[in-house]
């Protein structure tokens, strides 16, 4: 088990993306990067400097960026598009739907500043619906890594995958706990800790909160089966059902609207295969607002404390 007190280092997940992209540039000459005027924010500068001929500055024109990425992919390139999560999804949904997903193009849509934790910019930029939009597209792989290391590993892994991918990460510095050497397998959940009383399935930044919650619950004698679902689609059904068979109740935790996110994917699986009590830790169908990331997570109920309460509630409903 990871102990939160042993975790000393923090970095932003977007920097994991930037580091992964740079490495890909060296490994694979077909990798190209496109950015809509947010090169610094997306940490794509290093790639741009190292491979200027393979970097496309699209300007503040995201629809065209997605279309161009589809065209580049069509001829055999592996394009990675970079902008904020809001402008990577909602703004360009139809372009992704028709030119990328329906057309089966090998485009990697890489989205930073997802969720509430982008902070002070407020709700215009804090998209909480992107996982839902992306997972509804047939053939789309949806990944929300939990820390710097996992984001870097996921960035490397998606280049090897043939097909469109939505990779979602964030802005704030966040504790690093995913083993640096761990190979990232798309669609394979990461079992952080085995337990028998309650399953906690967490994605993205909420995995850190789930680790702290697990420590609290264990201290109270509640055995937690803690699983990181980094790939929301395709969901690792086998890992989820194996866990539910042990614990018979679950908590889902995500920095997303409770409608359409990881929790709903889990509920759908459980309803058809192994119905059991579930508690959601997610944003309750609302927009965000300005504030520091920590303040926002508290106000919107996305902390370890909320996960602890949800776990006890789920346990009581067994």
């Amino acid at each position: 088990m990871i102990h939160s007190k042993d975790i000393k280092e923090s970095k932003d997940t977007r920097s994991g993306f930037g580091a992964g992209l740079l490495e890909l540039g060296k490994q694979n000459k077909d990798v190209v990067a496109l950015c809509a005027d947010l090169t610094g924010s997306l940490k794509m500068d290093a790639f741009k400097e190292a491979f200027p001929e393979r970097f496309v500055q699209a300007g503040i024109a995201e629809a065209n960026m997605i279309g161009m990425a589809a065209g580049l992919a069509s001829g055999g390139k592996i394009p990675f598009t970079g902008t904020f999560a809001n402008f990577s999804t909602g703004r360009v949904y139809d372009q992704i739907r028709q030119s990328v997903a329906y057309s089966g193009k090998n485009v990697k849509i890489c989205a930073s500043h997802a969720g509430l934790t982008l902070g002070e910019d407020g709700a215009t930029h804090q998209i909480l619906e992107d996982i839902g939009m992306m997972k509804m597209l047939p053939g789309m792989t949806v990944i929300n890594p939990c820390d710097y290391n996992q984001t870097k590993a996921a960035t490397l892994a998606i280049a090897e995958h043939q097909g469109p991918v939505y990779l979602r990460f964030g802005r704030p510095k966040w504790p690093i706990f995913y083993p640096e050497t761990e190979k990232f397998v798309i669609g394979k959940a990461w079992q952080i800790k085995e337990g028998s009383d309650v399953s906690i399935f967490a994605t993205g930044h909420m995995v850190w909160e789930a680790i702290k919650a697990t420590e609290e619950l264990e201290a109270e004698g509640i055995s937690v089966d803690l699983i990181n679902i980094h790939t929301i689609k395709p969901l690792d059904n086998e890992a989820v059902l194996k866990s539910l068979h042990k614990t018979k109740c679950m908590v889902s935790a995500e920095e997303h609207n409770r409608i359409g996110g990881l929790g709903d994917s889990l509920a759908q699986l459980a309803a058809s295969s192994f119905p059991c009590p579930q508690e959601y830790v997610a944003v309750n169908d609302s927009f965000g607002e300005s504030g520091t990331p920590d303040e926002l997570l508290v106000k919107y109920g996305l902390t370890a404390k909320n996960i602890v309460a949800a776990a006890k509630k789920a346990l009581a409903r067994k």
Partner: protein
Amino acid sequence: MSETKRLQEIASQVRRDIVRMVHAVQSGHPGGSLGCADLLTALYFNILDHNPKDFDIKGNNEDVFVLSNGHISPVFYSVLARSGYFPVSELATFRKLNSRLQGHPATKEKLPGVRVASGSLGQGLSFAVGVALQKKLDQDSKTVYVNLGDGELQEGQNWEAIMFAAHNKIDNLIATVDFNGQQIDGSVEEIMGFKELRTKFEAFGWLVMDMDGNNMEQILEVMQEAKEQTGNQKPIVVLMKTEMGAGVDFMMGSHAWHGIAPNDKQLQDALAQLPETLGDY
């Protein structure tokens, strides 16, 4: 037989295919298809350097054509089949269940000749610019062609792509605009007009050419000139004056035949005006 005459005869058959396909399922878009029949015939039977018998969706080392205004799928499917991408008999499956010939072009059913889905307007130019970028990166000297509707230029994404292509000197790209002046709700000038489309493109930094899109001789001449202008640091657009419904008298002169099918009598009237030159499917 002159090349112009040969292509005109093929175009006549393509027009027969269009009205027959749309009539058979009583749905589809004959007007714009007929208007672009001459251009697409010229492209697929003369201009493009392509491999119909050995279709590779990547299109490396061959010219790539992108149909952005996907609703004119009947003309696209006809020239693809007639030039050898798939059997002509398959045109009979247009818009039917389990067909590879979807209402709007798609890649999911793996129809040879189609490289991207289109139908939701305004996306084809961006895709074509992407293919042009890929060709430049790969030192592939072939050309990318893209056909756009005039009404379609109301979609803002086009202007993002138009800006990008000029700024980045995408000079291995030739766009054609099907300027028939009509869209679903009326004339383009009435709905949301362009006034000076030429000066708009010029102001954005494109090389602009004009052509009568229903005059085969002129199409060959202007498209050849356009081809000669590639590699000169500027994207190229050919503003192509066409007549919606061209070739079928009662379908011409208005937007009425944008998206409706002829009845039995109208089909016969139309076919009587279009010589069967290659044999109906």
